[in-house]
């Protein structure tokens, strides 16, 4: 017969504590992915430059559209410049760029019969 004083509740508490610690350590190990510090620091860096990051993302997303627009505008300007060489009157730079007919007294009052034929009975 065991006559030692019973210390089971205290032992159980210590054992419970030790088991809980071991289990938490094991769960932590199994739940963690490698390079935690690197991943967190990357997020911290993003937090530090939110505005710069925003404009960079916007530029990356719209870069093809922006480049295509610039090429299209340059194409139109070149075409307008090419066409404006045939005008009798020297056009202004604005007229060349936007492809406008130079407005003179002659062109303002030179509406031909063809233009009125559709509206005049």
């Amino acid at each position, binding site marked *: 017969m065991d006559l030692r004083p019973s210390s*089971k*509740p205290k*032992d*159980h*508490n210590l*054992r*419970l*504590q030790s*088991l*809980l*610690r*071991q*289990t*938490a*350590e*094991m*769960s*932590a190990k*199994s*739940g*963690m*992915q490698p390079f*935690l*510090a690197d*991943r*967190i*620091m990357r*997020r*911290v*860096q993003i*937090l*530090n430059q939110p505005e710069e990051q925003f404009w960079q993302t916007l530029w990356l997303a719209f870069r093809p559209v922006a480049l295509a627009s610039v090429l299209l505008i340059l194409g139109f300007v070149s075409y307008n410049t090419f066409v404006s060489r045939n005008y009798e009157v020297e056009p202004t730079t604005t007229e060349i760029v936007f492809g406008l007919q130079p407005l003179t007294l002659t062109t303002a009052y030179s509406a031909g019969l063809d233009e009125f034929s559709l509206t005049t009975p």
Partner: protein
Amino acid sequence: MTLIPSDDTLIGRAREGDQNAFRELLERHQQMVARTVAGMLGASAEVDDLVQEVFIRFYKTLDRFRGDAACSTYLTRIAINASLDALRRRKRMRLRFVSRDDETVTLPEPGFYDTETDRFDRAELINLAMNKLKPHHRAVVVLRLVDGYSTAEAAEILGIPQGTVLSRLSRATAYLRDILGPVLAEED
């Protein structure tokens, strides 16, 4: 001889934008935070995400850290709050999709865990038993038994009176001792 900078020194440097100082703090405390979060959530893929979240919250609130408490205590408070939020989210998801309230814990016979591999089953059982505790009881168990904080520190971290910590701990440990009886009796 190289002096190891204290947490307060590193926090001061991190506040001034020194990211290496923050990294050092992170490496110093990541195991402790992971253990706290894993104690609260059990073995789960959420642990990694939540540990990241804890450090991001810490970084965002560096200016608010006044140094009244130790850095580790401050981090533990963030970890416990983040874990309680995660448990609330988990509960909402569970209620929405499937009820696991009927899940029963099957207890093994004493002496069942004889081999090294059985330690994993034992860990699973302990996690299941912890999951049965209410989140606020679990927080007390993790702080007192897993992290080793005193009753006063646990009360401060949770923002509750010391008496409440003691009563929650007593109820929780009684429940755990009851449910994990065979496991605790193994080495008697």
